[in-house]
């Protein structure tokens, strides 16, 4: 890309790092911004900066939030006896959209992948166990993508939570193996929450 002048090349490189953005799209976005007014460009830049500055992780559930604890953890309307465990923050929105789930969440920020050296140490599992010391917790719903790392993680959580006398369930197998929660349609997800099952 040496035929771009440096400021253009720099932005193309940055856009190119984003998921789903190839070199062509990166160039298109860059030239689009070049035509934009200064104000509009500044608004975009500030939105990006404030994303990093004002957003952090909830100290209870580790979802992204602009105030701590997050609004779900603080809500009186929600059922504080149920915790739904997800892999990443973006898995929460689809579950919220179904309107079926009224409990709390816990974001692990990853799944167990032994060959990559990602184990319990690298995830928010200690923090989950700390939350479960609260005797008012009745159920943990494991809503992790049904792929191999997800399955390892789900089985491990079941293994360590079951002795605490807390009900552990997982989403019904309406979700095909290898599917991703984030992209599942609402119907499937609805059924998966309603039909959640005990671990055998």
């Amino acid at each position: 890309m040496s035929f771009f002048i440096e400021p253009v090349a720099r932005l193309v490189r940055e856009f190119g790092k984003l998921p789903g953005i190839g070199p062509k799209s990166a160039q298109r976005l860059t030239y689009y911004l070049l035509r934009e007014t200064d104000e509009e460009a500044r608004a975009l830049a500030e939105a990006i900066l404030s994303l990093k500055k004002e957003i952090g992780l909830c100290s209870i559930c580790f979802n992204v939030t602009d105030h701590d604890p997050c609004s779900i953890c603080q809500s009186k309307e929600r059922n504080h006896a149920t915790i739904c465990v997800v892999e990443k923050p973006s898995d929460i929105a689809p579950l919220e959209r179904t309107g079926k789930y009224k409990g709390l969440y816990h974001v692990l920020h990853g799944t167990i992948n032994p060959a990559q050296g990602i184990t319990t140490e690298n995830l928010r599992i200690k923090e989950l166990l700390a939350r479960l010391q609260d005797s008012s917790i009745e159920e943990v719903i494991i809503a992790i993508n049904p792929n191999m790392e997800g399955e390892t993680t789900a089985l491990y959580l079941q293994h360590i939570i079951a002795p605490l006398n807390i009900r552990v369930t997982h989403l019904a197998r309406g979700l095909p193996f290898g599917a991703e929660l984030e992209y599942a349609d609402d119907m499937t997800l609805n059924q998966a929450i309603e039909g959640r099952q005990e671990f055998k």
Partner: protein
Amino acid sequence: MSRPRNYRAQAVVIKQIKLGEFDKLLTLYTSEFGKLKAVAKGACRPGSKLGGNVEPLTHSSLSLARGRNLDIITQSQIINGFPELKADLWTLSCSLYILELVDLFTMENSANPALFELLLGTLHRLTEMTSKEITLRYFELHLLDCSGYHPQLQKCVRCTSPLKSITNFFSPRQGGVLCPLCAEKEFKAHPLSVTALKTLRLWESCDYATAKRVNLRPALSSELAQVLQDYIKYLLQREVKSIGWLEELKKSSVDNHYRTH
């Protein structure tokens, strides 16, 4: 063997990483071509049939097309999805260890049908309700054999004298057993009990049905694991990461449940 433009292969998926938003980059171990990498397009889309067919620990029959950089999977059919391996934490973790070892011991595009058979056979054995330890040790020993690193167990690897029925030594660097005299001159050699040597000698030559009849007491079990894993680590010049996970699980299994079956 070089791959034709369009070809079929029997494969066990040993690794996957996400590629872009919806695709997966797979590492396959195939009977016909050994290890190869291929793209499963759209495998992460909900409802993708391909996605479920190319999860790790799946034995599938695949059609592939050679691409400019990476081959692309055009058709897939599951032969065995091994659901039993994915239903139990300890079994699943042992299976992941097998996959990691196959990945670490192989190079791309070098067919090794014996290793494919060993991999597939081992996955089937892990579904049985027998001790996983024997399955893992038998796999490690035969993986070494398939890969050209068969340890010398019959005579001293240095002076070639026959081994006496006493505690001998195993040297990862020499790739075999040393008699006590030679072991003194070798920097890193670990004691190897008579029973452990006998067990390894039996396992290298017998089929699995015979191998699993060995009464593997805890002390013998950990001695064999130590010997084989030290040798493997020496050959690879690196840690096998899944071992750390298996250790962590053993420690956390207070009730022994996951270890004994």
